[in-house]
């Protein structure tokens, strides 16, 4: 059973990792990279390594996505600050 869950997780991770390469939208690519980290943290939890899983979830899935997005915005590659409702 555990092996099947691990296989599904690894398959999804591979799919998300390939998506990172082929997505044209950079924000979507960052989200896909975060999905890889999130699934990896589930895999770590499955392998009875909760410490590593916690680190991966916090740093890989949470923080690195934010740092990547902010870095890309600073380099002018994406525009996160576009406001749809300026007076909201």
């Amino acid at each position: 059973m555990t092996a099947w869950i691990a296989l599904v997780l690894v398959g999804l991770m591979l799919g998300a990792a390939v998506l990172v390469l082929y997505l044209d939208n950079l924000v979507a690519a960052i989200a896909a990279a975060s999905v890889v980290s999130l699934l990896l943290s589930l895999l770590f939890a499955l392998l009875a390594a909760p410490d590593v899983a916690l680190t991966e979830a916090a740093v890989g899935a949470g923080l690195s996505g934010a740092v990547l997005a902010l870095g890309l915005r600073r380099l002018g590659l994406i525009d996160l600050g576009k406001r749809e409702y300026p007076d909201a």
Partner: protein
Amino acid sequence: MHKLASLLFAIGLAALLIGLAAQLPLGMTPMVVGQAILEQAPGETGSANIVTSVVLAYRGIDTLGELAILFAAATVAGLVLAPSIHAESRLRAKPRHDAGLVLRAGSDLLFPLLLSVGFYIVLHGHLTPGGGFQGGVVLAAAFFVSFLARPARQPSHVGIVLIEALAGASFIGIGLAALLGGGAFLQPVLDKGTLGQLVSAGSLPLLYLAVGLKVGAELSGLLAHLAE
């Protein structure tokens, strides 16, 4: 020519690694240190989480090095991605609006939750999985979410730098206190207490609190700096 050189380099590296790997007694690792730590760690450090006793007690200097690496990485990232003087004056002139209703309400809901989860993970590092690094990142995420919702009401840079500096200094201070007490640098001091209690494991929770505050302050400072 360039590709040929790269190919030759890759083949050479692979041959080197295969040659090294062939000599390793794979699958027959003696695991002397790991076995010894598993047997002795709870009694020696008083920490129910063996990972914490390795990170802070047996390999405390490694953790200090990790903090130094994180500090250097955050500093360099802030330096390289810093806004130019030109952009800064333009940003100053532009009034900064709050985010939309969804993000503001979500941040009001998430901020106290993330703050308590972060401090829980930091303070229970010696009992349950987690510790200063993980909890510190959660704390940084809490402040970053509130920053995203209300960019005008950002935390003061001086306060962040002060917390970071004090936390880093107290980590080294606890290490030096052990040295003054006749032990080795960063050797656990104070009473070990009862295994599994919140106040136990001597100075390890204090070290993790310092790590958590340092990591949290550093990363929230970096994120706020990048988001400006």
